[in-house]
C-alpha cells in the first residue's frame, strides 16, 4: 500500500510542481497580462490580506479560476494541484485498505478525504467563519 501511495504521490506532485514553475516563468516573461501590475506589487504586498483584496480586487475562494488566464493568478493552478495531490493519493488507498480488511483505517482515510475536500471547496472556511 505504501508503494502505491508513493507512486501516486511522486507523479502527482511532480506534475503540480512543473505546472507551478512553467506558469511562474510565463508570468515573469509577461506572456499574459497580470491582474496586478508588477510595478504596483510593492505598494500592496505589505497590506494585510483583507486590505490587499480590497485594494487590488484580488479573488477569494475559487474566483481565481476565472482569472487563471492572467499572468499572476495562472500560478494558482499549480498551487491548487499541490493541494489536491494528497486527496488523490488517499482516494487511491481507501479501496485498498477496505479490501484488506483494515476497516478502521479505511474509515479514517475516508473522513480525511472529506476534511480535505471541505477545505478545498471552501466549505470549511464558510462553516467556521460564517461568511466567504
Amino acid at each position: 500500500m505504501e508503494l502505491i501511495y508513493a507512486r501516486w504521490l511522486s507523479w502527482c506532485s511532480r506534475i503540480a510542481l512543473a505546472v507551478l514553475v512553467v506558469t511562474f516563468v510565463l508570468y515573469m516573461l509577461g506572456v499574459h497580462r497580470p491582474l496586478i501590475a508588477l510595478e504596483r506589487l510593492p505598494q500592496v504586498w505589505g497590506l494585510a490580506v483583507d486590505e490587499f483584496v480590497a485594494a487590488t480586487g484580488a479573488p477569494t475562494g475559487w474566483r481565481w479560476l476565472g482569472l487563471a488566464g492572467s499572468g499572476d493568478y495562472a500560478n494558482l493552478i499549480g498551487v491548487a494541484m499541490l493541494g489536491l495531490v494528497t486527496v488523490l493519493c488517499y482516494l487511491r488507498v481507501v479501496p485498498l485498505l477496505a479490501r484488506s480488511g483494515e476497516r478502521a483505517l479505511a474509515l479514517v482515510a475516508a473522513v480525511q478525504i472529506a476534511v480535505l475536500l471541505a477545505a478545498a471547496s471552501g466549505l470549511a472556511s464558510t462553516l467556521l467563519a460564517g461568511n466567504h
Partner: protein
Amino acid sequence: MDGVITAWWVWPLALFGVSFAIGAVAVLAGVGGGVLFVPIVGGFFPFHLDFVRGAGLLLALCGALSAGPALLRNGLASLRLALPLALVGSVTSIGGAMLGLALPTDVLQVALGATILGIVALMGFGRSQDAAPPKPDGLAAALGMHGVYHDAAIGRDVPWCVHRTPAGLLAFGGIGVLAGMFGLGAGWANVPVLNLLMGAPLKLSVGTSGFLLSVIDTSAAWIYLHRGAVLPMLVAPSIIGVMLGAKVGVRLLRVAPARIVRRVVLVLLLIAGLRALLKGLGAWN
C-alpha cells in the same frame, strides 16, 4: 512601504536567494524549511505576514510531497501510524489557519516570536531516543498502529508499536493549530511527539513526520488560498529557491560540519524569533 523606492524585482530576487540558502541550510541542520522561512522572511522582508505564512505552508507542503515517495518506498514512513494523527492535525490546522488570519498582526507576531523561541529551546535541549517497543494501548491496537520497518543502518527489521495514543492525538491537535496559524510546517514538533511521547522509533518518527506534514499543511493551505493569502510573486520564487537549495544541501551533507550548521540555525532562529517578538511589541520596527 518604508519610503525607499525599490524596483519590484529586487525583493523576489532576494527572496529566491534567501530561500535557496534556507533550503540548503535546512537539509544540513535537519529541520524543515518552513520553520526558518516564516520568521526570517516575515521579519526582514516587506511582505505582510499573512502572505509569508501562506507561502511558508506551501513551502513545507512541497518539501513534504517531494520527500514523501522516497520515505514511503524505503519503509521509513508508515501510513498506519500517520493516518489517524494526520486526520486530527488536519482538522485543527484549518482552525489554526482561520484563527491566524483573524488575529491582529502584532498579536500574531508576538505569538510567532514566542513559538520560535520555544522551538529553539526544544531543538537546543530536546533529546530523541530509541528504546524497546512500548506496550500498545487499546486505541493503538484498534487502529492497527504497529508494524515492522527495515533499518538499513543495522541491517535488520525493527518491530514497532506506539502507546499513549490519546495523548498523541491531542498533541497533534495542538500541532495542527500551530502549523495552520503560523505556516511553519511542524516537523520540529512531530518528531518529539511520535518518538518521545508515543514511543515510535526515531527513524520512523522522522520519516512519518514528513508524510504527516503533507496532509496537515494541505488543509491549512486551502484556507490561505481561499482567503487570497497566496501571493504568486512570493510563493513561486520561495518554492523554487528552497527546492534547488535542498538539492545543494544534500550534496553538501557529506562534507559540511552538521553540528556547526545546526548551531548557526539555532542562532538564526533565535534572532528571527526575537525580531518577531519585538516587532509585535512595537520595539523593533
